[in-house]
């Protein structure tokens, strides 16, 4: 710029020409840069929009509109919860119910038995006062997920437990397998083996989850049932294994990256000190890469947690609370996938499904944030020696 201006003084005609052309180019350049920058911001915008719009649709549940007095009165007679908590006014119960879960540790037994008893004795009157959002919100922390009934209950606790059950099973299956395989490719494998193993597992990453779900439903379920002899053909175990298969490539790839990112000097120093190959791999390289492996497992968990199609096809889809791995479960994502198509827009059920979506979103967002910031910082520190 400055040189140009100097030139302008000495030879106005020539430099003026240059200036004009330059300006033209700069203008298009400027425009290009602005457009590119604008588009680049799109990804941030999309994340924000996803959060806003998924959360927005779930908001009506939280609106504490004054429920009509009439419904409260009917609610009192029908509420089993009212009886359980032994409180006189239904209004009181509605307010405190969220907190009751804290107390419910001691009341839990009473609660479960009495609800199941009372369930049978329900005399469902038309327009039971349970349709309003407050009671839906109230029922969120209960155990029963019965969204389509005369008296819908949206207890997402069973769904959350089911999701965690499947996630734990899949991680117990996938994480060791993927990490060991990654250790093999990073530390032991010959170049040839590496060139077979890595692309093959990358290929698995490209398998559509429907295909894995189909495989689980048609083949894996029967196979595992023959091996383990359980009753329900589709259950948390089958779903967990199938989702583990889906999560293996993620864990493998990130772990492998973390292992190969460990500096060569670590390896050489260890070998020079007389450690054997496997000792180096296990006691030097693996520990050095733990933050990366941790991130890999976190992202694997994120994948399994939000997996929909495999959950729909292979877990049996019955909301049960038990800890038995061979029981059917219903996961959060599968619930959205199965029920969203059938709900009425704007209905309480619709809002609750969006609420579940928000939960999933927040959970995976946090997982990703932890994997991103905490783990990476640690990995860098460790590898660079503080």
């Amino acid at each position, binding site marked *: 710029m400055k040189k140009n201006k100097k030139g302008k003084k000495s030879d106005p005609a020539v430099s003026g020409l240059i200036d004009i052309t330059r300006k033209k180019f700069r203008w298009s350049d400027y425009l290009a840069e602005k457009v590119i920058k604008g588009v*680049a911001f799109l990804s941030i915008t999309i994340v924000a929009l996803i959060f806003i719009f998924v959360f927005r649709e779930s908001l009506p549940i939280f609106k504490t509109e004054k429920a009509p007095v009439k419904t409260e009165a009917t609610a009192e007679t029908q509420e089993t919860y009212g009886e359980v908590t032994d409180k006189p006014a239904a209004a009181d119960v509605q307010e405190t119910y969220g907190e009751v879960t804290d107390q419910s540790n001691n009341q839990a037994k009473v609660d479960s038995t009495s609800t199941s008893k009372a369930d049978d004795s329900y005399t469902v009157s038309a327009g039971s006062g349970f349709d309003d959002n407050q009671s839906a919100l109230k029922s969120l922390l209960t155990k029963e997920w019965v969204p389509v009934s005369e008296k819908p209950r949206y207890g997402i606790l069973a769904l959350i437990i089911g999701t965690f059950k499947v996630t734990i099973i899949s991680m117990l299956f996938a994480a060791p397998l993927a990490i060991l395989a990654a250790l093999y490719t990073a530390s032991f494998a010959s170049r040839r083996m590496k060139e077979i*193993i890595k692309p093959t597992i990358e290929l698995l990453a490209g398998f559509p989850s*429907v295909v894995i779900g189909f495989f689980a439903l048609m083949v894996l379920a029967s196979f595992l049932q023959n091996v383990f002899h359980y009753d329900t053909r589709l259950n948390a175990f089958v779903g967990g294994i199938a989702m583990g298969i889906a999560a293996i490539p993620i864990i493998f790839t990130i772990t492998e990256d973390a292992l190969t990112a460990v500096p060569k000097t670590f390896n050489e120093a260890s070998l020079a000190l007389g450690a054997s190959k*496997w000792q180096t791999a296990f006691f030097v390289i693996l520990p050095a890469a733990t933050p990366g492996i941790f991130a890999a497992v976190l992202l694997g968990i994120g994948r399994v947690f939000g997996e*929909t199609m495999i959950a729909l096809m292979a877990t049996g889809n019955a909301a049960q609370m038990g800890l038995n791995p061979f029981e059917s479960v219903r996961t959060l994502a599968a619930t959205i996938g199965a029920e969203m198509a059938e709900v009425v827009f704007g209905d309480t059920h619709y809002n609750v499904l969006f609420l579940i979506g928000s939960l999933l979103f927040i959970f995976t967002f946090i997982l990703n944030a932890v994997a991103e910031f905490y783990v990476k910082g640690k990995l860098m520190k460790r590898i660079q020696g503080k």
Partner: protein
Amino acid sequence: MIKSFKNNIKGILIEGLTLSSALLIIAIIVVMITVIVVGGKDQISWEFLTSFPEDGMTKGGIFPAIYGTALLVIIMSVVAVPFGTITAIYLTEYAKEHSIIAKTIRFAVRTLAVIPSIIYGLFGLGFFIKFVGTTMDNTFLGGQLKWGQPNILWASLTMALLTLPVVIVSVEEALKTVPNDLRAASLALGATKWQTIWKVVLPGSISGIMTGTILAVSRGAGEVAPILFTGVAYYVATLPASFSDQFMVLGYHIYVMTTQSANVDQTLPIQFGTTLVLLMLTFILNISAIILRYRIRKKKTT
């Protein structure tokens, strides 16, 4: 001596353990492919691929599902590839590596990559259909329901958001392989930054953009959850002709046939056939992407 012998055995055991893990994973993949190929190969015929379902989907082919999948990924790519490429260009060419903006965008991209696909479905429903679509209906059509319901446009846009990070990541990787010397040479010859990007950097990374597109198409063809309630249909008698039509998709077809249909056993061959078609499709796409990517990486190292 004894100690080293023990160590040797331990070493062999441990190496064997890691090797067998790797082999087990590969075995699972091979078994999966074999089962699906064996189950579906008899079903595959020209007729199966080009005819409509018949008799309540118990007979006939899967042409509408193939057509719908193709249409979906085309519309999706038209949106996702340019936007993804531009974002990648910004990240590699314009943004400073450690600036807050670049970091935030990278974080957003990774977040997009890990958000469960079902959330995209919810977003498509809440944003495209209920917000954009309904607004369009109210302003242009006077409240007549046309865009405020599931259709192929909203499904494709939802899918485009899902595949955006795939494109961004692969294009970014490819842009980084373009040597800085080329950029410097171009700038030294008097080209502006944009000219350098357009004439030098982009042509040099065209294979990366291809890889990104292929991976995105493969991902989009296989995903079902995002389109469950944004446009896919159990059965439509006609092929989608406009943006506001519903459509069929291979993945959803598999899901519906295996879990929702009344006679699962009767349609078993069709299920296997459809799965095989979908698997082959993603397979071919992925293999070509992997080959392309390895080529790019080789170029980087040499």
